[in-house]
């Protein structure tokens, strides 16, 4: 498709020299002049084709190199012939800045638009009308209010009063009978039946009249117009005054003559949308038309939504149709996108109409993600809907926060496409009740991804071809594991006990592309998750399982562990038993080095009577003894076979932690000083061989520093035990005056 030929053509265009360009341009000028003035007929046609060819090449050169030849501009502006005009417009777009060329309707920027052009709407040829309307869409100036009104009136005419007779082109010329003008019949519906009411885009005919075309155009830009002009001034909305009084009697349409144009347009839009909903119930004869029906349904429901937002009294008129549509479509999920539009309507107006919206939410957050997780367009639309209406959904729709196992299916299936959406949505899914389960679900995302692949593969693969994981998926013994992953709602447990079994069964899925992509999304989401958890969950909540000590080593997790505990020091004391168990296991110093260092640091930093009254001398002593034991083992014996010697950082952090603990319980000071001095000697000639001289020096230096510090217990305590909320000496009533005096006298001395 895209070949080397195209690539070299582009290169030629980009590298064209100035002299060559000038020659080409003068040739072009001659050609276009000759064509305009020269002979007609075949020779003229050849010249025309040559001119077209040159223009096409010129466009390519300009697009590739961005260079301009001024002389051509005037000539291009005056060319005739449809194809040349299109090409000239394209060339002009490449050369001129968008807003300078008034000829070029398609590039009108809102600010430069001339209001009088709107007034000429009646005479403008069909294709240009949308451009005026689009320019009008970006109007904000109040002086154009009249034109807005005019446009509203025009739209009403086109939408409601288009002809219902078929257009020209219905005449048949019989070969034997001579020309006969057959009377064009009425337009028909998509299923061939006669048209019931006014003309809409879902009516067909052999040929269309001009106003029927305008009907199609007008409907196509109706909703953008309603959205854009709802903020525009000019039309006094009487309905705003009545809107606060929701009247159930206003079910009949008000007499149109008395309403302002804007209100009339709303009324006509309402009727058009209702008619489309009725027409979509018919079975279209062509497949393309069935697709159109769905798109029309989405548009119709959104128009009703918009109209009801502007005029609350319309809700009672609109609801029956929308409800009936929901009832018709919800059993099958073929029109899922329409159901999303219906959900939006329910969300905005369900309360006003006092309608039970629960079935809708069960569908949106239950069935749709569970059955259609592999439809990228639905995923995008559903997640977008959720994002835009989060402020409504989160407080009011309990199904939303409980539905994260289902929503994560979109992510597990196609993480690159929806990751951005989840980064935005995840914080809203973190609630005190579900936080732990959510964390486990995030960590299990690759497993979910593999399970979804198996779920889709299962019906299509015979038992002979089934792989190990597919067999496991189908076997009743392991069914429970997979069903847990595929659950639709939170609340049935945080995680499964037989996680290791699941990992074993899915081992071959580790390099499936979808699973790999899902795995790459996990660290990003963990960051988002932990940032959200800190703000959402109250301090008193027990974070027992949140401490990720038992999880495989993961940089993200240990980073957040540290951050978490710094924010909530009481957590360390709460979990001191687990932390001590972890820190007291020497094997962890080798295999989970990063987490180990962090835990040791935490214990040393936080465990003090000052930070938490529960921190007793016994606790400090037992912690000291565990760490001392580990340090002794690590430095006095060779590392286990197959392992590298422990990192120097582990050793220095252990030493520091011991010193800190000792500084708070002074009985321990002699013990630690003795230990550190023995360590100095052992480090030099002991069982452990250090790979770098700097490591040895660092350890020995640290030992010496700590020893000398501990000779002054009072100093050691203030240095090694930070005040609970950071240094505040400048605020302390006792300390501050002396600091201030010193500063002032220093300044005075400078003078």
């Amino acid at each position, binding site marked *: *498709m*895209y*070949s*080397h030929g*195209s*690539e070299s053509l582009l*290169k030629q265009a980009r590298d064209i020299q100035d002299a060559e360009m000038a020659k080409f341009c003068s040739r072009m000028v001659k050609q276009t002049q000759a064509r305009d003035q020269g002979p007609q007929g075949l020779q003229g046609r050849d010249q025309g084709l040559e001119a*077209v060819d040159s223009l*096409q*090449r010129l*466009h*390519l050169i300009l697009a590739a190199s961005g260079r301009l030849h001024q002389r051509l501009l005037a000539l291009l502006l005056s060319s005739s012939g449809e194809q040349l005009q*299109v*090409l000239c417009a*394209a060339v002009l777009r490449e050369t001129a*800045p*968008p*807003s300078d060329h008034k000829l070029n*309707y*398609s590039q009108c*920027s809102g600010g430069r638009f001339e209001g009088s052009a709107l007034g000429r709407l009646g005479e403008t040829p069909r*294709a240009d009308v*949308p*451009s005026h309307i*689009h320019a009008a869409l*970006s109007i904000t100036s109040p002086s154009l209010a009249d034109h807005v009104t005019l446009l509203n009136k025009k739209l009403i005419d086109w939408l409601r009063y288009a002809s219902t007779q078929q257009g020209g082109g219905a005449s048949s010329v019989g070969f034997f009978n001579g020309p006969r003008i057959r009377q064009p019949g009425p337009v028909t519906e998509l299923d061939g039946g006669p048209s019931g009411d006014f003309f809409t*885009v*879902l*009516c*067909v*005919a052999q040929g269309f009249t001009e106003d029927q075309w305008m009907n*199609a*155009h007008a*409907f*196509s*830009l109706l*909703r*953008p117009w309603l959205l854009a002009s709802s903020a525009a001034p000019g039309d006094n909305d009487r309905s705003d005054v009545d809107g606060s009084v929701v009247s159930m009697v206003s079910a009949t349409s008000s007499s149109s003559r008395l309403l302002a144009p804007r209100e009339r347009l709303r009324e006509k839009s309402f009727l058009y949308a209702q008619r489309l909903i009725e027409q979509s119930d018919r079975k279209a004869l*062509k497949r*393309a*038309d069935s*697709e*159109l029906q*769905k*798109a029309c349904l*989405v*548009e119709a429901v959104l128009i009703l939504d918009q109209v009801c937002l502007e005029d609350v009294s319309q809700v009672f008129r609109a609801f029956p149709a929308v409800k009936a549509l929901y009832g018709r479509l919800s059993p099958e999920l073929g029109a899922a*996108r329409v159901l999303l539009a219906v959900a939006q309507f329910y969300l905005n107006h369900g309360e006003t109409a006092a309608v039970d919206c629960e079935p809708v939410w069960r569908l949106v957050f239950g069935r749709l993600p569970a059955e259609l997780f592999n439809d*990228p*367009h639905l995923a*995008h*639309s559903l997640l*977008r809907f959720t994002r835009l209406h989060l402020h409504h959904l989160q407080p009011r729709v309990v199904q939303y926060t409980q539905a994260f196992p289902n929503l994560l299916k979109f992510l597990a299936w*196609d993480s*690159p*496409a929806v990751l*951005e959406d989840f980064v935005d949505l995840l914080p809203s899914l973190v609630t005190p009740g579900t936080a732990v389960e959510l964390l486990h679900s995030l960590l299990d995302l690759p497993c979910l991804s593999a399970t979804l692949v198996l779920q889709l593969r299962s019906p299509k693969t015979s038992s002979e071809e089934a792989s190990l994981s597919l067999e496991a998926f189908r076997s009743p013994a392991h069914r429970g594991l997979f069903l847990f992953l595929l659950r639709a709602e939170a609340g049935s447990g945080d995680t499964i006990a037989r996680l290791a079994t699941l990992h074993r069964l899915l081992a071959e899925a580790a390099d499936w*592309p*979808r699973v790999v*992509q899902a795995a790459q999304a996990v660290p990003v989401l963990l960051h988002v998750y932990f940032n959200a958890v800190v703000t959402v969950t109250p301090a008193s909540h027990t974070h027992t399982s949140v401490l990720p000590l038992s999880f495989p080593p993961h940089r993200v997790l240990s980073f957040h562990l540290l951050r978490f505990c710094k924010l909530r020091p009481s957590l360390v004391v709460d979990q001191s038993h687990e932390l001590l168990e972890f820190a007291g296991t020497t094997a962890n110093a080798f295999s989970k080095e990063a987490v180990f260092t962090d835990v040791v640091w935490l214990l040393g930093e936080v465990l003090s009577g000052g930070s938490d009254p529960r921190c007793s001398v016994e606790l400090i002593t037992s912690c000291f003894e565990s760490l001392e034991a580990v340090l002794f083992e690590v430095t006095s014996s060779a590392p286990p076979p197959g392992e590298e010697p422990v990192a120097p950082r582990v050793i220095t952090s252990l030493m520091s932690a011991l010193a800190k603990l000792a500084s708070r319980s002074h009985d321990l000071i002699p013990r630690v000083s003795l230990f550190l001095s023995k360590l100095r000697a052992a480090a030099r000639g002991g069982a452990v061989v250090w790979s770098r001289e700097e490591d040895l020096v660092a350890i020995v230096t640290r030992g010496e520093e700590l020893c000398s510090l501990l000779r002054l217990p009072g100093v050691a305590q203030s240095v090694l035990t930070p005040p609970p909320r950071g240094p505040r000496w400048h605020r302390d009533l006792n300390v501050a005056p002396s600091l201030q005096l010193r500063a002032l006298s220093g300044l005075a001395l400078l003078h």
Partner: protein
Amino acid sequence: MVHCFLINTVCPVSALEAGDSRVLFSRVFGPDDASQDEALSAEERRALQRDKLLLVARQVLSSVTLSREASGRGPTEGVAAAAATDEATALQEADSGVQRLRAGDPFLGERSVLWLAVQSLAFSLVCLPHENLLLAEGTLRSLARHCLEHLRLLGHGSEVLLKVDRIDFLLSKLLPHGQLLFLNHRFTQSLEKDIAAYMAK
């Protein structure tokens, strides 16, 4: 209204680095964000617009590549692998998807880019937030079908670069001024007559 229509490569191109895409056709509808900034000169505005489109093309390329990888189809080799299938089959086998473009990255407001990847080319529509995406998908498919037919994109020619007027004409009929149209099969037939007449020239 659609923000822009784009055709770009989604195969490895020898002259470009991996991850870079060649924009073969682009058309921006309506006022774009850059024109709001009066401090820039015309040239700068054009260059800025071009850069934004290139960013979109790269985003589409990575979406297409990841999607094909995930569904087990490797990225197509631009020249070698393209078998001489007919347009209808190529379109049926095409991958499609949609990607969110955050506000500011690269356009001022949020956008959704709908893409349809046919062998080594991708057709994309960058849509504004409240667009009817179902309609946009149908329009994109229709545009792609006409481009494939009338520009002989499955062959090795360079029509996509040279026959810009044809694409512009298609856009003026099917997506006039960026407006998505609700067209039933009769309306479409009428437009296709006009299109066929133009392409025959």
